[in-house]
């Protein structure tokens, strides 16, 4: 009950005209960027970060929370109307949502996704209130060795599970860690990777990294690649649901919420896996299985609830441990740090007002989103008519301004361009972006805990292995790392038993690579690169028809 009175206090803080205005602004911007493919909440938060330096920390957090939730709403609009997911979390929505739109049920698809998102967001935010303080009271007893283990799980998780291949994931993580290392060593004062440049001595600002990789990289990528035929407009009426639609939607909403929240809360869970699992679940449980593939409302309701619930789930490790599980959370974390607030288990005790206010603002933002999205969905779809050159010119302008504003050094602009080229190259070679951002943001934190643990034991390696928590963490890391080997061994054993060479153990779809011994985890469902370029994937979706049997490396069709 203590939490609830604290939450009510948060509500009291948040309901001032100015705060409400920022919440509204956040959800409007969030929905807009969610609608536009290729521009996600992570990029937006990164772009707005320098602009919000002038704001009090409360208001910029309210803004970012709104953008984060709004992005999840907006992504579904393009998925449904265009078969082009605006967000990687909405990829699954396109499966059934676009089919519904093509059969003239766009309004119902939009309505079920908006209402489902609202319900999932509200339940999810409620769960934050219930779960987060518990996690904090547990985490507050953890020392540096334990945190070391937890961060390591986050590293290995993001690098190995997300992304089209482990090598690419770890390569991206390595680049991120290297970027995080640049600067002055905080213990010895030694210069590292600065190449003698005084500009690099003060660490590369996370804003420059994030804006360079997300915004400039994406803009270069679009400039280099994206020329595609425009789509025709699908007319949408006012979104509404009939009684039958309500009856078919409410269970998937709840199931999607139940799937999404825990996945959002674990490192490397993200929103892609739970949306896909929710889709598979609904397909299996549906009373109308024949409608799946032709526009079943359950296939929209479930995944849409799941992605919003996972957005809420993300807030738990972010606020309780200071651990980001997706790119947007990573940037929000960087924002917290830039205000001199140290994220971690102590956040709730040190800044209780801030935390509860943020949570209260999430409830309010969620309500705004329902009000904005239900009647205005057709208006949001108009954003898609903005010519790309206008859009990306604006993004590049904000990116350069933001990077310059951080320190007022022209050097940062060159750095921005270099990082943009890096981001472009990563997209070109299919490297996921999330491990890089996580590496760059958590790298210094990881190092701090590493040094602290080692200092505690006078440099003895036994200091790294603390209590049971870190044993569990290292265990998880080992399993994830060794998974390809385990999978291969199991396959060999299976083959020995039935003698015929069974294909893909537990793969989600036509894995077809039974002999090559690639890890099943690698070609999991839709786990490609975080938020790097949903547009790219959108084009895949656009060009290929679902249910075709062509095996794509990063994308699997569900098979019942």
């Amino acid at each position, binding site marked *: 009950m203590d939490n609830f009175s604290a939450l009510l206090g948060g509500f009291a803080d948040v309901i001032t005209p100015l705060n409400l205005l920022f919440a509204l602004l956040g959800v409007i911007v969030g929905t807009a960027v969610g609608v536009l*493919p290729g521009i996600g909440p992570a990029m937006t938060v990164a772009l707005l970060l320098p602009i919000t330096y002038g704001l009090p920390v409360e208001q910029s957090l309210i803004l970012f929370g709104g953008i984060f939730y709004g992005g999840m709403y907006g992504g579904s609009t393009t998925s449904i109307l265009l078969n*082009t997911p605006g967000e990687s979390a909405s990829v699954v929505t396109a499966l059934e949502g676009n089919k519904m739109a093509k059969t003239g049920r766009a309004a119902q698809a939009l309505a079920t996704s908006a209402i489902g998102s609202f319900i999932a967001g509200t339940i999810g935010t409620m769960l934050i209130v219930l779960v987060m303080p518990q996690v904090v009271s547990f985490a507050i007893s953890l020392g540096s060795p334990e945190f070391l283990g937890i961060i390591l799980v986050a590293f290995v998780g993001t690098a190995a599970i997300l992304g089209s291949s482990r090598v690419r994931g770890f390569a991206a993580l390595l680049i991120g860690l290297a970027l995080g290392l640049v600067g002055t060593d905080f213990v010895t004062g030694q210069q590292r990777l600065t190449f003698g440049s005084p500009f690099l001595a003060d660490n590369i600002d996370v804003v420059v990294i994030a804006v360079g990789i997300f915004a400039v990289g994406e803009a270069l990528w679009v400039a280099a690649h994206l020329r595609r035929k425009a789509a025709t*407009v699908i007319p949408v009426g006012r979104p509404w649901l009939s009684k039958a639609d309500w009856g078919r939607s409410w269970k998937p909403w709840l199931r999607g919420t139940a799937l999404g929240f825990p996945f959002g809360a674990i490192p490397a869970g993200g929103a892609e896996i739970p949306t896909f699992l929710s889709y598979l679940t609904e397909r299996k449980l549906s009373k109308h299985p024949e409608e799946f593939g032709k526009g079943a409302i359950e296939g929209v309701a479930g995944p849409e609830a799941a992605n919003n619930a996972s957005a809420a789930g993300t807030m738990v490790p972010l606020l309780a441990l200071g651990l980001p599980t997706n790119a947007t959370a990573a940037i929000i974390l960087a924002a917290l740090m830039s205000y001199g607030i140290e994220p971690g288990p102590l956040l709730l005790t040190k800044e209780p007002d801030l935390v509860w206010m943020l949570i209260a603002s999430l409830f309010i933002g969620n309500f705004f989103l329902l009000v904005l999205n239900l009647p205005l969905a057709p208006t949001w*779809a108009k954003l898609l008519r903005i010519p790309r050159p206008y859009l990306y010119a604006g993004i590049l302008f904000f990116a350069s301004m933001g990077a310059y504003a951080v320190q007022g050094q022209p050097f940062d602009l060159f750095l921005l361009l270099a990082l943009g080229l890096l981001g472009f190259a990563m997209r070109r070679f299919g490297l996921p972006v999330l491990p890089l951002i996580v590496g760059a943001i958590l790298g210094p934190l990881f190092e701090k805990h590493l040094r602290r643990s080692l200092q505690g034991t006078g440099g003895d390696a036994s200091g790294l292995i603390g209590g049971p928590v870190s044993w569990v963490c290292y265990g998880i890391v080992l399993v994830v790392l060794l998974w390809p080997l385990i999978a291969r061994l199991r396959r060999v054993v299976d083959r020995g038993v039935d003698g015929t060479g069974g294909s893909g153990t537990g793969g989600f779809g036509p894995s077809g690579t039974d002999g090559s011994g690639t890890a099943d985890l690698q070609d999991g469902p839709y786990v490609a690169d975080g938020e790097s370029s949903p547009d790219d994937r959108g084009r895949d979706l656009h060009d290929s028809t679902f249910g075709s049997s062509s095996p794509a490396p990063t994308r699997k069709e569900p098979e019942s």
Partner: protein
Amino acid sequence: MTVLVGYVPTSLGEATLRAGVAESRRRSEPLLVVNMSRDDVLVDAHRAKSDDLDRVERDVAELGVDVEVMRIERGSDPADALVRVAGEREASVIVIGLRHRSPVGKLIMGSAAQRILLDARCPVLAVKEDTA
């Protein structure tokens, strides 16, 4: 020599088409219907669906007019594309739709119609929605 019609899937587009058919009969020249959609936007309201274009072709052919339907999906400048096609096909007249624009709209967006009026090498017939 042909009569070139810039077609968009709206009531203005239909009016333009009707004027184009009339013009084509008057000059006894074949009709070329062009629909242009830009490739730098995700959604273009001016893009006509293929069944829409099929219907245009069928309807106009039923009226006994020699018709060809062309769809342009590359490029980002409708005015330029239309004028270029007019030059290639040696169009004797271009028929386009013209509508009122709000002051804000004028400020933000350029006018494709104005560009065609100024750039085209042949006479241009501008059609308004209510007159046709």
